């Protein structure tokens, strides 16, 4: 899933963008209070072309399942249609969800909103608290706990 072949932007030309956008928004819609972004705000085409090129053909096959009016339907109706698709091809749907989440949770805006550091973990890293070890004094008073 890394070191994938990268595709040129034209590879995305025949992907119906409105359908894709609606599908992304159905899988990860914005939060009701508006703080969390919808997946349709991600640059999914760039993600797919550079990181998941082998999924492009599957994506095109998935989008064929959704009619012309799909992008204009209210969220609840889109959810019902996507659910029907999920039940008809669980494996393909699994792969789709993985790709949508992968793109979504790599986004630095999203990462900041969920309290994760933007960018790769290395070399910035994290700081964690040492933690309270004081009760180990009581643990020690239990005496030798091993057998020979």
């Amino acid at each position, binding site marked *: 899933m890394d070191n994938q072949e990268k595709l040129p932007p034209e590879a995305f030309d025949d992907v119906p963008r409105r359908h894709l956008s609606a599908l992304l928004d159905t899988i990860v819609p914005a939060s009701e209070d508006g703080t969390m972004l919808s997946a349709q705000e991600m640059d999914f085409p760039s993600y797919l072309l550079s990181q998941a090129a082998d999924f492009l053909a599957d994506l095109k096959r998935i989008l064929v399942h959704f009619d012309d009016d799909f992008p204009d339907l209210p969220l609840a109706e889109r959810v019902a249609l996507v659910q029907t698709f999920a039940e008809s091809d669980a494996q393909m749907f699994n792969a789709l969800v993985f790709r949508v989440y992968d793109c979504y949770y790599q986004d630095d805006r999203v990462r900041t909103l969920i309290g994760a550091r933007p960018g790769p973990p290395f070399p910035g890293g994290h700081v964690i608290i040492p933690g309270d070890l004081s009760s180990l004094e009581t643990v*020690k008073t*239990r005496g030798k*706990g091993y057998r020979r």
Partner: protein
Amino acid sequence: MNTSSNHDPVDVLIIGAGASGAAIAWNLTETRMRILCLEQGDWMTPSKYPTNSQNWEAQQFGAYHIDPNVRGLETDYPINNQDSPIDVLNFNGVGGSTIVYAAHFPRLHPSDFKVKTLDGVADDWPISYDDLDPYFLQNDRIMGVSGLAGDPMYPPKDLPLPPLPIGMVGEVVAKGFDRLGWHWWPSDAAILSQPYEGRDKCLNLNPCSSGCAQGAKSSTDITYWPQAIRSGVELRTRCRVREVTVNEHGMADGVIYYDADGHECFQKAEVVIMACNGVGTPRILLNSKSPQFPDGLANRSGLVGKNLMFHPVGVVRGIFEERLDTHKGPQGSCILSKEFYETDPDRDFVRGYNMQVARGAAGPLATAFQGFRTGDIPWGPGHHEKFHQRFDHTVNVLALCEDLPEECNRVTLDPDLVDSDGIPAPKITYRLSENSRKMLAHGLARGEEVMRAAGAKEIQKVDLLRSAGWHLLGTARMGNDPTRSVVNSWGRSHDVKNLFIVDGSIFVTGGGVNPTSTIQALALYIGDKIKENLANLFDD
């Protein structure tokens, strides 16, 4: 195919450059013998480890997966796990599985070496904790191990580095242990809490099991190997051994292997040391058939491949109200409890388990996708609310159980499946014993208790973790009786006096802790025994 033999003979040939192969290579350097290690994988490039990239999490589902069947690199071999509820996990490259291990680094306990004497089950080891004691310390120093001395569950021991921070996760669950009056202790880890020997300290990145870009995790490619190579050991990568060959006297005389271009080569050697782990070693021995050894090399006991032990693992997942920073800090165990480690006659099982508090792979993608698979975090409306409840709020307690040896649990050669060089793949046949089942049930119930005591608001359980074949033990066991064991008390084959085994295959019983510290201490111990006996190494 023609076999080429264009390499000079060597004194010692080690197969496998993982935890044990590295330790024994380093140990034997002072002999000034010509030592060669053949490794099927490559050297790793830390700057290519996933944590250098924005898409680090997705890489853990692909090229850096811990399951070789999913990873499927050229350097991997397939493993047939269909007859096992636990999948074998490993890594094949310089450093072996230490490239992906979580580096939790406990030693076996003194009682683990005497289970027959103390508890009337399985067999005693032919050596004791005290025999290995100096080697544990030597290994800790070379690897770089952090921990806190004074744990009453062990004889006194020193550790080269202070403990890693236990973080909020450790602190909260420790309070649960305290409320129940149970033992707990910060975990020993082969991860640097301070700069050490030219390596920098842990940056709390989290995904240790896809390689440590910081070099803080002690994998043997950055600990033993540089020292061994400086001292003259040759390490040849992309060399996959097919079989160990024998001469007319029934002594090992070398190996046949495939090089990077798939050429079949012969390497002559005076001594052969197997270090391919508890699955890789029996695989090659079983594949080394000859008129003297029709059932596989060193297999007159019929025990090569048998008595496979894992550590069956049950998981209790607690979801907490407060944010616990679970995506920060090493993913392995931060604290543990040995409350239920030793046999208690009031329980319905013998031996015991340790409870490890672990962050696990806790990044956002892993949280969201795992939640999708278990149905806990929906896609669509409601996704964010559930995600927020779980991300950074979920803690795992693992009950890691001792598994007793049984001959029916075994590694054999798959009749059909082969690797890319055509070498038969290992087939795993394994079932959970009644004792392990009861132990797991006990561990899961205690895990739930401690999570509740720690304040978890929601609890989930995984009765038996399938992706838990981390520890591969027992398939060429040690012992004094050649009819009941494959190697003697210092790793030498009973049947082939110049063949040694130093990996987890030689464990007689598995203990209830992660094994690598003990595997490496054993390799160092065997190295010293080889040196002591050098003048009459092959005598009866």
